[in-house]
């Protein structure tokens, strides 16, 4: 190696300047910020797990999963901790919401992606975005003061708090989510597939139902699962409109209580931090967390596993 080359090498070597120091620090600082989200998950899992473990020292697994009464906020020996009534309430609202949101959401997505003129799309999509941005407390108010009185015109015996009204409004809340995610999946279907079907003489409906929907099915199903996961975790609508009576029932006109609604009710009460009823919030929260986590992972699995390669 000649002396000149050594000199040249040293000339291009990074100097230990302040600038370089900053450059090497910045990715580390940014990483710390990125790590906040990991710490959040760790925090959620850790807090739920420790308090739930404490809860199960007082209540047996068997009671929690098989007992058909949930009277956690009663006093003393009247307390019973069977999650089934809360679970059935949650499922009732979720199924009801699905009945409302899945057909309407899918039909909206088909309309927006296959039928709608550009002008209509330009108006409808922002309106759906506004609908998606409305706070759930507002939907709860709407359910209680508008939907329930309306339903009572048709079902005379309907109580003020009922699962039906809550599930209809939860369904309306998740329509924009299902519509927009399904539409994304359908827009990703290449134009050539549609053109081929049109060339065979298909009507617009046949193209939509026999070509586009099957091709985008994984994304559409994933949007349903995500929407239902949102319905399970929804809190304020069911707290306001569905009632606070945990009963094991599948009657949509009944007053019920969901897992989330129970957590709100318990948080508003005066429970000491050491009581079993206070710890029951965590046990219910853990169940809710696991349920939605499984559904979200299922949605991701479906959209990955069954994705069509165009």
């Amino acid at each position, binding site marked *: 190696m000649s002396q000149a080359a050594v000199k040249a090498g040293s000339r291009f070597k990074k100097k230990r300047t302040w600038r370089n120091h900053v*450059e090497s620090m910045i990715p580390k600082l940014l990483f710390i910020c990125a790590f*906040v*989200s990991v710490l959040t998950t760790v925090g959620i899992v850790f807090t739920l797990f420790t308090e739930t473990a404490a809860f199960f020292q007082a209540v047996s697994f068997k009671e929690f999963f098989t007992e058909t009464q949930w009277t956690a906020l009663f006093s003393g020996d009247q307390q019973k901790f069977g999650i089934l009534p809360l679970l059935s309430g949650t499922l009732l609202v979720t199924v009801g919401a699905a009945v409302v949101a899945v057909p309407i959401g899918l*039909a909206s997505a088909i309309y927006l992606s296959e039928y709608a003129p550009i002008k209509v799309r330009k108006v409808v999509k922002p309106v759906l975005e506004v609908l998606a941005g409305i706070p759930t407390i507002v939907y709860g108010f709407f359910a209680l003061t508008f939907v329930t009185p309306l339903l009572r015109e048709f079902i005379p015996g309907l109580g003020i708090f009922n699962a039906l009204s809550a599930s209809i409004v939860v369904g309306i809340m998740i329509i924009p989510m299902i519509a927009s995610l399904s539409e994304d999946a359908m827009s990703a279907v290449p134009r050539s597939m549609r053109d081929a079907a049109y060339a065979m003489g298909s009507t*617009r409906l046949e193209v939509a139902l026999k070509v586009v929907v099957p091709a985008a099915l994984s994304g559409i199903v994933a949007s349903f699962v995500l929407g239902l996961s949102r319905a399970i*975790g929804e*809190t304020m609508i069911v707290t*306001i409109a569905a009632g606070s009576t945990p009963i094991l029932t599948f009657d949509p006109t009944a007053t019920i209580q969901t897992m989330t609604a129970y*957590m709100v009710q318990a948080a508003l009460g005066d429970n000491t931090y050491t009581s079993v009823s206070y710890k029951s919030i965590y046990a219910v929260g853990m169940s809710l967390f696991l349920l939605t986590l499984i559904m979200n992972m299922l949605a991701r699995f479906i959209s990955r596993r069954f994705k069509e390669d165009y």
Partner: protein
Amino acid sequence: MDRRLQSDGRVTFRRSLNHVLHGLFLLATSVGVIVLIVLLVDVWRQGWHWISWDFFNNFASRIAENAGIKAAFWGSLWMIGVTAPLTFIIGVATAIYLEEYAKKNWLNRFIQLNISNLAGVPSIVFGILGLTLFVREWGLGRSVLAGSLTMTLLVLPIVIVASREAIASVPASLRQASFAMGATRWQTIQNVVLPYSLPGILTGTILALSRAIGETAPLIMIGAVTFVAFTPGNVLDTFTVLPIQIYSWISQPQAVFAELAAAGIIVLLAVLLTMNAVAIYLRNKFQRKDG
């Protein structure tokens, strides 16, 4: 002849089926629009006559005539005032890290997976975290700070996802031009990537904050109180927010409180729509500058 007639009939049937379902699809799409209009009209009809100067200037009261949203309104402002810088800094930093620095290894894949999972966690679970960690462990009590930290964690995924999209949309040629001028990576990010992606980042941040303003459940969990007769003076004061004030009015049996709740909702929706308008305005303004 017979066969042609049959096939004509079949074509006619297929065409009319197409028309019928076109109508049905349109009807389904209009459900959302109709519900939105009905909801706004219903709320306006019930609440508009309560909107007055006194409504903003009175604290919560057991007597409907004297009830107002002063504490809740200022509580919401305080909470957002602390949440906004926190989410912006942490969210944008995370997005820059993931888009510009992160190598494709398991740790960074895990961070990404983790963020998309957090986006699907019900908000009330974040409330449990806030209650346990911030209110009890850190001893912040039922304060503005505890509420803001909870909200920050809740809306962080929204900011991160939006910021990542905005940063990823910066053309590679701009970065290369900057590098070619001898700029370092951080100089490039600071002077090229961030200014270019700022409209997208701001839009995402504002949408995330409007979500935070409307959230009720996590703040009920951490115990933001419903009856507060003062406005917060610092971040360690107890507070209430608009959605909780609305909730406590909805929970009252008397009809007059439903009207107060409607009035509160009008204010809440007005704030949210203003924020959306600001987001659109910012996006347009910056886009024009670039063009």
